[in-house]
């Protein structure tokens, strides 16, 4: 391998005009997000995880839709017990839960992979502002996860509609809460990725962060069992995890629109809180 001669080209002496604080901050954030997007897109695992998540949503939804269609045509379906439209909508989003595991892994890995190889130090040297770094990673995750999960949810909704219509059922798009549930599932997944990335910043190791996520996700459920049932039912919707904060947003029936968004807001608040803690820890900690 040969190396070209050292660069002796004259360097620009002017290091850019010094601009006001607002105009010099904004490109900093935008650039940090762009850089994290390039990083996420240029490793194989991102594509694999997003594919797994998409397949989880689509295949599970389609499989359940087929099962509903078959049962309906045999006259044994849930249509006899409840509103058919509401049930088919729930079916369309039945794969979201499994996809979330992949999304959480993506969020964790987006940070811990940097720690595993030392890339985090190269990154911090380029973006020394820790808040900018955490926001850049979080925003890049949302930019990737949101459209993919939205596409997966809408695709599954459409596929479910087509499949159940063969059995005489339907999935009307103007059904209350359906669009909110489809969009909400994608928003929930995006926020989950940010939440998981926050754990990644705090714990740093892939195994440790994944284990922590699993703990945060499942432990409250076990603790709730110790509480009296009425209290547990009140607390449950505000804890992270299955059936907890944010999950109401991708439920179609049995919840008001306002309550669904408040629920998602609570989950977003958790993700924001963990990102703030991560930023504070990064500022104090040696990279």
């Amino acid at each position, binding site marked *: 391998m040969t190396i070209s001669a050292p660069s002796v080209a004259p360097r620009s002496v002017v290091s850019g005009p010094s601009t006001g604080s607002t105009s010099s901050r904004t490109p900093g954030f935008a*650039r940090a997000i762009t850089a994290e997007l390039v990083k996420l897109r240029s490793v194989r695992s991102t594509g694999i995880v997003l594919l797994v998540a998409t397949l989880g949503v689509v295949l599970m939804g389609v499989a359940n839709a087929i099962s509903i269609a078959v049962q309906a045509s045999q006259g044994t379906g849930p249509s006899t017990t409840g509103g058919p439209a509401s049930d088919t909508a729930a079916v369309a989003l039945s794969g979201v839960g499994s996809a979330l595991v992949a999304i959480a892994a993506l969020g964790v890995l987006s940070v811990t992979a940097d720690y595993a190889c030392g*890339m985090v130090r190269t990154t911090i040297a380029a973006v*020394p*502002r820790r808040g900018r770094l955490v926001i850049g990673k979080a925003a890049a995750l949302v930019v990737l996860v949101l459209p993919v999960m939205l596409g997966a949810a809408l695709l599954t909704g459409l596929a479910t509609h087509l499949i159940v219509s063969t059995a005489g059922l339907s999935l009307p798009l103007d059904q209350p809460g359906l669009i909110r549930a489809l969009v909400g599932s994608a928003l929930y997944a995006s926020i989950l990725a940010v939440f998981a990335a926050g754990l990644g910043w705090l714990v740093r190791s892939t195994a440790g962060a994944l284990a922590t996520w699993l703990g945060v996700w499942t432990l409250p459920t076990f603790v709730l069992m110790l509480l009296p049932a009425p209290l547990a039912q009140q607390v449950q919707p505000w804890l992270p995890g299955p059936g907890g904060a944010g999950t109401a947003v991708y439920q179609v029936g049995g919840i008001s629109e306002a309550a669904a968004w408040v629920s998602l807001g609570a989950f977003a608040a958790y993700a924001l809180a963990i990102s703030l803690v991560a930023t504070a820890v990064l500022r104090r900690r040696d990279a």
Partner: protein
Amino acid sequence: MIEINHLSKRYGARLAVDDLTVTVRPGRVTGFLGPNGAGKSTTMRAIIGLDRPTAGEVLVNGRRYVDLPAPLREVGALLDAKAMHPGRTAYHHLLALAATAGIGRARVLEVLELVGLADVARHRTRTFSLGMGQRLGIAAALLGDPGVILLDEPVNGLDPDGIHWIRGFLRARAAEGGTVFVSSHLMSEMAMTADHLVILGRGRLLADVPTAEMVAATSPSVRVRSPQAAELEVVLRAEGVRFDRPQPELLVILDRGADEIAELAFAHQVVLHELTATHGSLEDAYLELTRNELEYSTTPTANPTDLRRVA
């Protein structure tokens, strides 16, 4: 320009850097020397804001590193050649870093060409040798065409061709008015590259001198082995010669040439078994300076002569 003001860094019970004050000036290559564990890497990590100083501060171009709006345009740093994702291509590694400073892909391709990695730009970095990783790290440091270059042990893993290129590159950068700060634990390497030396031992500043001054300070000596060392000692004292007698039969003459000693011995009929002129090298001066400051010394009682023989 890098201004290090009373920098201290403590890791648990270990004080890695102890009240270090140094200014690294533009227009010359400053070599950062010290034995392993002396605190060189810690200092460099503090310069680019990776590690928080326990006390003191570091300013780069008059500002804290964390306050630089686009650090890569002002400081190019290579601290760890392996600090890259093995599954990412060289091109994408640089593209991501370039994005943080608003640098376009044309410059990415340019630096890949410059360090000789253009042919493997689309290969994942896990396929790279240590030397190729080092070159990619240098390419990253060059992305923003920065005025300050900071390299930690840059010649590790480089082939002779690469080492030659690095030396030429650093000298050219300094000649253009850049601030170049390069660490190494090898004096011989720095002697060929650096104009100025900052020497660290156990976290403390041992020397902050021009390389030429360091060379001038290393004086030649003459080793004399004689069964009549005691008689020779009397003669030398009478002649006002400065010398050491580390062993009963060994004299080390500090301010006379071998020829003079030979003539003195002949005139006074002293038998010599050995008469060796040893030229003081920069390496010797460095070892002398850091002898007492070795963090992980294998033989704590060894004198520099023994170290020289081992080296």
